[in-house]
């Protein structure tokens, strides 16, 4: 791949993991916690958010040079709120059930720190194409986070994932998983677990580098063994 391609590719992928909005940047936490009682809700929320994110990024990137910086935030908010209203209207018209489930959290996409944050950090400085890629990447990352959180909570809280029962009837569902406390705890434990894995890998890599670049005897000596 050419250098340019690599950087475009990176525009997309960074949001998926390295800068995952939920796990790494701790943004957009409210919807992440509130709606993830099931995988389906998480996915729907993430898709709605991604829709708003992508379109607002596109529009804002297009008009970025026309907006005076003093009314920057206000303009972003209006653009975002417009798309959120569209999502909300469409959902209420076409998917009344889902709209009822996600309740007041759809309008709150307006203030989702993730969306505003991306406009400030990226779309206001880059061309529409890259902004859309960035938005798609962040959206994917958000989707991964919300879907996995929703899946775990649904599995233990209702024995199923995406409505498919996976655990036997003998398994008593843990009600706490679909309560607020369960949301915080699950996400906290997930993040801790991920961090532990990352730390472990880092430590192992460091050990590898050490053993490759430092003469054996030195390593042994530093570990206090007789050489």
């Amino acid at each position: 791949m050419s250098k340019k391609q690599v950087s475009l590719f990176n525009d997309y992928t960074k949001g998926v993991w390295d800068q995952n909005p939920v796990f790494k940047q701790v943004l957009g936490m409210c919807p992440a916690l509130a709606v993830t009682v099931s995988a389906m809700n998480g996915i729907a929320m993430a898709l709605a958010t991604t829709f708003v994110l992508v379109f607002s990024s596109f529009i804002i990137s297009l008009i970025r040079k026309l907006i005076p910086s003093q009314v920057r935030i206000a303009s972003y908010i209006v653009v975002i709120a417009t798309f959120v209203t569209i999502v909300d209207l469409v959902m209420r018209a076409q998917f009344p059930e889902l709209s009822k489930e996600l309740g007041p959290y759809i309008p709150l996409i307006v203030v989702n720190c993730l969306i505003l944050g991306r406009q400030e950090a990226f779309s206001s400085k880059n061309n529409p194409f890259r902004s859309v890629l960035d938005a798609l990447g962040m959206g994917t990352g958000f989707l991964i986070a919300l879907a996995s959180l929703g899946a775990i909570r649904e599995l233990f809280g209702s024995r199923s994932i995406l409505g498919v029962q996976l655990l036997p009837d003998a398994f008593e569902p843990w009600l706490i998983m679909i309560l607020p406390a369960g949301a915080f705890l699950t996400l906290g434990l997930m993040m801790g677990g991920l961090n532990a894995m990352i730390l472990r890998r880092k430590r192992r890599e460091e050990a590898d580098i050490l053993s490759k670049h430092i003469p054996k005897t030195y390593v042994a000596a530093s570990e206090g063994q007789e050489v």
Partner: protein
Amino acid sequence: MKTIIAMLVTLTIIGVVSGGGLAMISGWAAPLIAANKKAATERAIFLVQPEAKQYEAVAEVPYELYRVLDEGGQPTGYSFPWEGNGFQGNIRMMIGLTPDLATITAIEVLEQVETPGLGTMILEDPFRGQFNGLKTEPQVDWVKGAPPTKENEVQTITGATISSKAIVDIVNDGLARLRTDLAQGGDK
């Protein structure tokens, strides 16, 4: 000054475009949303009145009340949305009644925020079914931990006593209101 004008102009343009766009989409969505809402209400009206075929709104009372009719247009009872406090928040339900208000045909919970899996058992049949054909004179009563012995009693759900009582209370509250209003209005 120039920047202020630029600011105002930008915001106005964005506002107008956004407002215009939304007005268009809303124009498309509003009837659909209204239809959805109407469908939901209708579904609920007939859910608590399985026999009924048509309905009409009763205008004499300052709240929603539907008189349901059979094929021939004869009144067969009332469908009646009412709400009150549950364990966590508001519970809104539809109550089906016979014309003399002495018997409940069925109930349906429309909106609630009770604890999933616990308070939400009020939505399910072991509990809800108890209201089919329940007598309402002098009022609906509840018992805890034992099957009901009287015609106007329901048994509360273990672990969700409060939600169960809330349903009973809402029914009684609505009935009381209805009785006074209909007695005055002389609807029969």
